[in-house]
């Protein structure tokens, strides 16, 4: 079940919301317990809908880590025992992630390197395992460091891990950001209205923008690369650039909007990354929850930038390679991560002095080109395909523009302009300029129209993938 499906929009969520709010108990503690219970049950149903088998895996993970958190807390004054427990916890969770996500990749590489033929049963990837494993790791590590107290009730803990708004595609919510809200949260009409607006914005981004432009990239890929002109290839990757942003940020918005309706405040996950004027700036704006997680739980524990230049460079390369690996069990993802790691290192240590003198428009165009090249690694099935695509992007000795490219441009120029304006925050800025009553009415009418258009689109279209589902 995805947020942009009819089942979710018209059955699951309305029913959940109804049961969440009704009945409402005057006793606040009882009311929160009831809300947490409904949320937990709904979340388990949500997950089991798509993963009737792997729900067991998630339950095992929740119960194990709940007890581990308590165990670490009970042994907080015994350093050795505490250390052993956190190692057990990290190994357990990373084992789960590695086995179900990376086992085929690991065996493929062992077979290649050692010329073996070890066979394996290819397992479907449990939906959301990368997200909920990282959330669990953030919890047990924070308990170990004493940053948070272990949760002594299973229900709020299960709620935190299984919460359906952010379970399968983030944002990655650190326990410390949500701890208080599990026991006390206020739900007001204004917050609910804000949540609905954010949800509809996300739905529009996903259904009207991402799905539409994604079909363009899929169309380009049906052609052999050597038959495409340079402009066609660039339009293809531009389409993917837009698709992945609107797909993922749309889903994040929907998660944040749903959370708000339920009384939770999740942190922003995207801050108009396509406004970035450097790679460093881009990664301050893209998938903020993931980069924060890697900063807090990998980069800083490795020493961050406190152990000299060489060590900082090594740490950055490790973090970014792992970031790539997190996204997928394939070499092209690792290369994608390392690609950004190297660029970040160059920006920090080589070009830092020069960048401030380069005009902003040039920095912006260069950043966007780099980001688009990065997406080639991300979108391709293999490293070899990525390299071929990049070669085609810079094949200036071949055909630069042809009839197919002109066709793609003429049929997609308006959507691309609209998407560029949306991706760079132009609409947000326009909406924020006027806050009078009439503007509010217009704003709500616009969102109502967006919602209706999304429903019509969902009913009529069959192309409704969600790219980040594969993590």
């Amino acid at each position, binding site marked *: 079940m995805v947020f942009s499906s009819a089942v979710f929009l018209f059955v699951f969520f309305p029913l959940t919301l109804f049961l969440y709010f009704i009945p409402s108990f005057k006793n606040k503690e009882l009311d929160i317990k009831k809300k947490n219970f409904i949320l937990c049950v709904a979340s388990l149903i949500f997950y089991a809908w798509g993963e009737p088998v792997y729900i067991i895996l998630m339950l*095992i993970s929740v119960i194990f880590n709940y007890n581990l958190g308590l165990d670490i807390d009970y042994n907080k004054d015994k350093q050795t025992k505490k250390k052993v427990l956190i190692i057990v916890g990290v190994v357990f969770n990373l084992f789960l992630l590695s086995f179900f996500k990376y086992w085929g990749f690991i065996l493929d590489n062992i077979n290649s390197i050692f010329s073996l033929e070890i*066979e394996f049963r290819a*397992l479907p990837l449990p939906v959301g395992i990368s997200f909920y494993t990282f959330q669990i790791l953030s919890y047990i590590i924070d308990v170990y460091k004493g940053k948070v107290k272990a949760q002594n009730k299973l229900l709020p803990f299960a709620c935190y891990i299984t919460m359906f708004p952010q379970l399968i595609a983030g944002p990655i919510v650190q326990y410390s950001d949500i701890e208080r809200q599990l026991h006390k949260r206020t739900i007001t009409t204004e917050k609910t209205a804000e949540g609905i607006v954010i949800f509809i914005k996300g739905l529009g981004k996903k259904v009207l923008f991402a799905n539409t432009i994604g079909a363009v990239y899929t169309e380009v890929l049906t052609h052999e690369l050597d038959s495409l002109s340079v402009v066609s290839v660039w339009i293809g990757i531009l389409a993917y650039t837009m698709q992945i942003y609107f797909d993922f940020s749309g889903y994040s918005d929907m998660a944040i909007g749903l959370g708000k309706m339920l009384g939770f405040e999740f942190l922003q996950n995207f801050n108009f990354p396509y406004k970035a004027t450097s790679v460093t700036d881009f990664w301050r704006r893209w998938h903020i929850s993931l980069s924060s997680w890697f900063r807090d739980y990998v980069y800083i524990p490795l020493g961050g930038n406190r152990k000299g230049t060489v060590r900082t460079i090594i740490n950055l390369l490790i973090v970014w390679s792992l970031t790539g690996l997190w996204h997928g069990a394939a070499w092209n993802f690792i290369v994608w991560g390392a690609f950004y790691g190297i660029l970040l290192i160059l920006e920090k240590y080589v070009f830092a002095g020069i960048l401030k003198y380069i005009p902003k428009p040039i920095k912006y165009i260069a950043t966007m080109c780099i980001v688009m090249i990065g997406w080639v690694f991300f979108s391709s099935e293999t490293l070899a395909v990525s390299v071929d695509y990049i070669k085609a992007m810079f094949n200036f000795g071949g055909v630069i523009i042809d009839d197919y490219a002109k066709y793609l441009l003429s049929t997609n120029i308006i959507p691309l302009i609209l998407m560029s304006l949306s991706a760079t925050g132009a609409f947000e800025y326009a909406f924020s300029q006027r806050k009078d009553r009439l503007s509010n009415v217009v704003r709500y009418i616009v969102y109502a129209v967006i919602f209706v258009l999304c429903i019509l689109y969902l009913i009529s279209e069959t192309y409704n993938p969600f790219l980040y589902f594969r993590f």
Partner: protein
Amino acid sequence: MKKFKVRFFEILCIVFLVVFIFNVTQGETYSTKTIDEVESSVLEVFPTEDLKKIKKNKTKEEFSFDFDQIDSFSYYASDSIMNVNELLIIKLKPDVNSFDTEQLISERLGKKQALFEGYAPEESALLQNYVLKSDSGFIFYAVGDGAQQSLERFLSVV
């Protein structure tokens, strides 16, 4: 008592995890062979003199496959409508069920059988004696005189 309870549940979860992993890993394995290895072996027994190798977009037109599910493929067919011989080997991606892809092949085969029934007895017979089999992440489909032998070769190589 609390510490014992906590430790008990931790160990219980590990036991359940082991049992769960054991259960989900039972079943068909995923072959490590590449499409090129399987293709070259099968082509030793399947005649392709009148056939040519078909590219991705044409294959997609013929079968309407979802190429997001397909790792690699090899498809041989004839330009002539009256020549029904064809050979298709697909390697699916590791986490993909073969059902949908096999269904598309079966549907197309059904339409072809209906087309030739009643007026082209030789071609009809070849279409009736088709082979369609999935094994270890591969799907094998063949129509032609060498279909059965090439299936045996396919099964031995994957």
